[in-house]
């Protein structure tokens, strides 16, 4: 099997698997309990929080564990908007956000809240001038812009977004699932108020975190306990916290170049196919681990099925509940029509990818895509 879908999830890292088994063998209690078993669990939980805070340059009280990044995104947006101390009432976001943000903002819009949607360039980057103009109009906004787009790999100019928010007194939430390094940078520069990360994208267990800058108030969205400083009820998940800390440390210590080499290798193969178009910008404005393509005349579905039958796992970006391929909202926002938006094929790489494996996969991908494109051309 050739796994080229790290932007969806990554295989579990063996170090984390070992650590989880080791902890699982201990009699860990509920971290809220006063007894020794509880203390033991609390020790693991709080050490994990400490390590994450250190890795990101944050304070421990700024790190809040959640079930995953979707919950963290919901909590960031709904929790800050509904808090009595929050002055920011308007929402600013874009159509290329992950569904965890997009649907949350959409729902607020349907409920009558003021929402403005940022324009998006054809390379998938948001229009900064538009953002500046909107902030002038609505300075007290919550701005939600992701660090790196999950479907096409476009890196957003989040440093500039953070600066604009600071200038206008707006709150800035950043979904950093596809780019923890960018979140670390924003935190270091003090340019972000809310940010989330996910463990399973990094080779850990499921489970995510929300960074809440000191001084930013949020209301819990799940109530029924005082865990996580009263901001997220439910027994704290010790193993997930430990896994997230390890995954983040390992990921941040790795060279980005290895993943880029894999990506470049596949791209050099795909570039030779007539009618193949890579989406998104070049250079530093794109993520190192994602490459997304449109193949003229062919939709993603037959390509993904044919690839799977040959052992290559790729994806069309976002999946719906019945895992059928839908037109990509992101590709549409970049200015492509409905037809082309069903054609998005995404390949993504991560900690276990190596160039030998990708080399073999690349020739399969090229064969499959060329064959299907030819078939489509010859169809009466």
């Amino acid at each position: 099997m050739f796994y080229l879908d790290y932007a969806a999830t990554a295989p579990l890292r063996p170090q984390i698997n070992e650590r989880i088994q080791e902890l699982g063998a201990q009699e860990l209690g509920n971290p809220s309990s006063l007894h020794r078993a509880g203390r033991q669990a609390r020790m693991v939980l709080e050490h994990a929080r400490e390590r994450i805070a250190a890795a990101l340059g944050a304070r421990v009280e700024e790190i809040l564990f959640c079930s995953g990044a979707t919950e963290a995104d919901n909590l960031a947006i709904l929790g800050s908007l509904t808090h009595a101390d929050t002055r920011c009432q308007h929402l600013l976001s874009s159509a290329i956000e992950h569904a965890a943000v997009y649907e949350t903002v959409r729902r607020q819009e349907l409920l009558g809240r003021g929402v403005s949607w940022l324009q998006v360039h054809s390379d998938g980057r948001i229009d900064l001038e538009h953002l500046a103009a909107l902030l002038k109009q609505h300075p007290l906004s919550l701005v939600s812009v992701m660090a790196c787009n999950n479907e096409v790999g476009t890196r957003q100019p989040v440093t500039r977004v953070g600066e604009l928010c600071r200038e206008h007194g707006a709150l800035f939430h950043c979904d950093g699932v596809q780019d923890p390094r960018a979140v670390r940078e924003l935190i270091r520069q003090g340019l972000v108020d809310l940010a989330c990360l996910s463990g399973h994208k990094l080779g850990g267990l499921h489970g995510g975190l929300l960074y809440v800058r000191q001084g930013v108030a949020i209301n819990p969205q799940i109530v029924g306990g005082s865990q996580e400083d009263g901001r997220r009820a439910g027994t704290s998940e010790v193993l997930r916290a430990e896994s997230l800390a390890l995954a983040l440390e390992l990921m941040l210590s790795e060279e980005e170049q290895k993943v880029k080499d894999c990506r470049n290798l596949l791209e050099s193969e795909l570039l030779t196919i007539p009618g193949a178009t890579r989406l998104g910008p070049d250079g530093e404005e794109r993520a190192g681990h994602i490459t997304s393509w449109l193949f003229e005349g062919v939709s993603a579905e037959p390509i993904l099925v044919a690839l799977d039958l040959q052992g290559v796992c790729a994806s069309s970006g976002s999946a719906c509940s019945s895992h059928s391929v839908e037109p990509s909202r992101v590709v549409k926002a970049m200015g492509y029509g409905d037809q082309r938006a069903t054609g998005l094929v995404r390949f993504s790489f991560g900690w276990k990818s190596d160039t030998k494996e990708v080399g073999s996969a690349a020739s399969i991908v090229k064969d499959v895509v060329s064959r299907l494109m030819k078939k489509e051309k010859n169809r009466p």
Partner: protein
Amino acid sequence: MTRVVVAMSGGVDSSVAAALMKHQGHEVIGVTMTLSPNEESSAHKGRGCCSVWDVTDAEKVAWALDIPHYVFNLREAFEKHVIADFISEYEKGRTPNPCRRCNQHIKFDHFLERAEALDAEAVVTGHYARVEKHPTENRHMLLRGHDLAKDQSYVLASLTQSQLSRILMPIGNYSKTEIRRMAEELNLSVANKKESMDLCFIPDGDTAGFLKNRMKTLVPGPIKDTSGETLGHHEGLGAFTVGQRKGLGIATGKPRYVLELKVAENTLVVGDMDDLDRAGMKVDELNWIDPGFATNLPGGPEATIQYRSTHRGTPGRLQGVPDASEITVLFDQPQSALSPGQAAVFYRENEVVGGGTIASTF
């Protein structure tokens, strides 16, 4: 070993079809089509087909059979060819058969095309009908399923020779009881799954409510008898069907049946059961599965004619010329409740020789 794609709905029939193909040694790929427009959970209303839970049922069978399984998104084509047609047919005062349209445009057109993209040699469905090579002529035959109570050949009569040559329907050789027993023996999780009866895109069965929401105009108008006397009013012609007795909202002391939907006058004509009798009908949108039968049309060939999915056919004669866009059908005995818009299918014993759409009746 040939590669085949099985259309798996998550129901017992297509699940056993997949199992049979696998046991015959084929390389089997399971595919579930998502057709219904909404993505929202309808679990609280009861499960229609193509819900996420049906997809999961199909997947569980695929896992048990150790075959790959995929979901094809055919929502757009389904909306265009089936739902839009369903609504516009009702708007024209006709009674559509969406399953037939789905077979014609979705299952054996879009689906075949997508299966071919996967280098599959045939698509397999769980229909109670049989596709066989003619023993002497160079053509395929569409035959009624062995289980006549479950036979679905009526909704398949728009298939072409080119399509039939790439379709397999292994279920047609068995009875429903045998299929359920096989499913149990194979330990398939869907062995005792309830049969879906409603239209898949109207899971709550409220066709009138669906049409009310989707039709452009529903204009109230008169209900008249055959002499032109007004007996009452309807809320809009949509969703009335020839032969319908319930839900007319008129009290005349005797049962009244819908005889005709006069769209131009927005009038619903009702009458006695006897008034439903028709000597014949005009049939268009013709498709001849046995081209030889069509060449004999000038001789007024005999056939068994089925004009409703629940009907079992009645003898009559066909009149027309081989390439005509419309032919006339004369029944040996008058028939009641013929609805324009429904399929008319012509059988020679158990073989479908052709079919079309009821254009008008007389």
